């Protein structure tokens, strides 16, 4: 089957990163709106290898969700204008015809998102919706086989009494259980990469802990890679080996998660860290980042963060800093990255 071939061939050489499964290069996404051109993603490059875990951390409007939307082919173009390249197994997902990208989207690269409850079709049983994955992507699968595998998957994502609940409708499921159904659908075809876009943001913290543990277990069993999109520093810290920090449509910092957290090399990352209330700062004022993220129709020139940055100098509004190495494993897009890194 073509899909199997693609899986085997799924490690194309990517400049600078051997064995990358998915390579995004210079991705740019903009939207024409009545208020002007919204520059949502402005030159984002990253790659992910087999079994890797990468977090994309950012606040609203940082471009994190739009970036993965482009990877998953979820942006209608037009109105979105998309540039750059997204390569998976030798295929540029931005240029390949739909019959080729269909073998990748939802199959080799699957996605779950924040709003599991509305992502499910309320008129169909959850078992039917999971089984649909096989009927659509594996046309040879018999109906009985698809149903059996749907029940197995529900069991695998730890939905209690899975065999009975195959016949349940989405409204009979809580938010946490709906997210498990979405995970079951996402892992149905044993994807190489799971993209999880704020998978626990709508959930309570005890349910979040269950879902993050489930994702970690499934990753361990299947070896799939994980791209986790989140605004939550704690979730990033506990779940992914590498992190990309996004601000106003660009990656401003990246590196191994623990190192980035222990010693940020970009003032925005450092500011985010210190805005989080911690026990030892109970009696102090929280450090804040002044102002608010820019409106995406009017992104400041130079470094987009400069109007909010305590280290801002004239060069920051004149020259846009590129993502450059701070150490062998770390990159930062700041003219003063070395000083920030040294504290």
């Amino acid at each position, binding site marked *: 089957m073509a899909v199997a071939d693609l899986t085997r061939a799924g490690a194309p050489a990517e400049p600078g990163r051997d064995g990358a499964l998915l390579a995004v290069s210079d991705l740019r996404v903009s939207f024409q709106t009545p208020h002007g051109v919204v520059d949502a993603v402005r030159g984002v490059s990253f790659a992910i290898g087999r079994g890797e875990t990468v977090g994309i951390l950012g606040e609203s409007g940082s471009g994190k969700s739009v970036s993965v939307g482009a990877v998953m082919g979820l942006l209608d173009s037009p109105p979105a204008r998309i540039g750059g390249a997204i390569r998976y197994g030798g295929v540029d997902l931005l240029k390949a015809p739909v019959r080729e990208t269909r073998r990748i989207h939802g199959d080799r690269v699957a996605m779950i998102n924040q709003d599991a409850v509305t992502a499910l079709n309320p008129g169909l049983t959850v078992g039917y919706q999971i089984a649909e994955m096989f009927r659509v992507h594996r046309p040879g699968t018999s109906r009985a086989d698809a149903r059996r595998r749907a029940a197995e998957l529900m069991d695998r994502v730890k939905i209690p009494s899975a065999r009975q609940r195959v016949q349940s409708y989405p409204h009979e499921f809580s938010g946490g259980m709906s997210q498990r159904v979405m995970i079951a659908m996402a892992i149905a075809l044993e994807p190489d990469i799971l993209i999880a876009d704020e998978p626990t943001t709508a959930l309570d913290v005890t349910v979040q802990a269950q879902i993050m543990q489930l994702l970690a277990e499934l990753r361990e069993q299947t070896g799939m890679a994980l791209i986790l999109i989140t605004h939550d520093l704690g979730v990033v810290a506990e779940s992914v080996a590498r992190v990309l920090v996004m601000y106003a449509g660009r990656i401003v910092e990246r590196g191994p998660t623990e190192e980035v957290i222990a010693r940020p090399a970009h003032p925005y990352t450092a500011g985010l860290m210190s805005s989080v209330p*911690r026990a030892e700062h109970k009696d102090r004022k929280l450090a804040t980042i002044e102002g608010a993220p820019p409106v995406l129709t009017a992104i400041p020139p130079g470094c987009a963060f400069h109007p909010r940055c305590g280290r801002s100098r004239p060069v920051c509004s004149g020259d846009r800093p590129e993502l450059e190495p701070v150490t062998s494993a770390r990159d930062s897009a700041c003219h003063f990255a070395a000083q920030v890194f040294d504290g």
Partner: protein
Amino acid sequence: MAEPATGAKGSPAVGEPLFEVENLVKHYVVRRGAFLGGGGVVRAVDDVSFTLRRGETLGIVGESGCGKSTLARVLLRLVEPTSGRAVLAGENLFELGAREMRLARRRLQIIFQDPFASLNPRMTVAEIVREPWAIFPGVVPRAERHDRVVDLLTRVGLNADDAHRHPHQFSGGQRQRIGIARSLALNPEIVICDEPVSALDVSIQAQVINLLEEIQDEFGLSYIFIAHDLSVVRHISDRVAVMYLGKFVELGTWREIYERPTHPYTQALLSAVPAIDPAERTRRIILEGEVPSPIDPPSGCRFRTRCRMAEARCAAEEPALVARAGSHPSACHFAAPAGS
């Protein structure tokens, strides 16, 4: 029954009892629906008692459906309580007539979670901030109102020019500032903050938390601070109540709750929060299942269906919220610090 004494240690600014809530109950009767199956009684808030002291911040944490937002609404009588008392300045708010209640709200204001839904889009910022004075004309003389609006706006970090703009021209964090300015217009004693920062990005959240702390000192406010974010509640609260299925399960100073929790639910809740610092990571207690329905909650202890310590006694006998394990009030028969 009055709340068991805890004492807000380490909070010298905290003064005398200001607001006493006793045995507050809010039940909703749900009828049998075509799709939802059986009817019943939703026990949204079920026998909650506490005392708020002057200048204090009482944090209330809990997951969705625990009743924390219903509690806020009942205290303001935006919904009517089923039973109980809420005594402010010698008056039981629940016995007041509509007119008297309106007057009492001068002392008791609220800041809502959603700064997009809680501000009238047709009004200017000045009109929004000034609106409470239409009901309480005596608070600020007419001639001083313009200046007062400007004072309030600048105090919350907005500009005088912003007075003539409309809510849609502001970001989420700025709208929350407008809501805060409005809540201050009547010089209240108590402000109920219902998830005031949970719709905001992390970097904006910190600004609003700092603002709330500053105005608390300046205006001598007491806060009832309701949130699901445990780190935010720890930062701002003197004391903290943990809510589960309509009940307070544990109540203590922030240190007692965060550093020496004795209720298994509090312990699980705290352990579930992802820690940024590897050093802060504790052994995670993963709870089984999800919160049961508040219609027909479990007998005895409501948490027993998910509790790793549950025994037969927990189904038979409801544990009272009383001081246990030589420490603060905890509603568990087996209350003990973690690991003991």
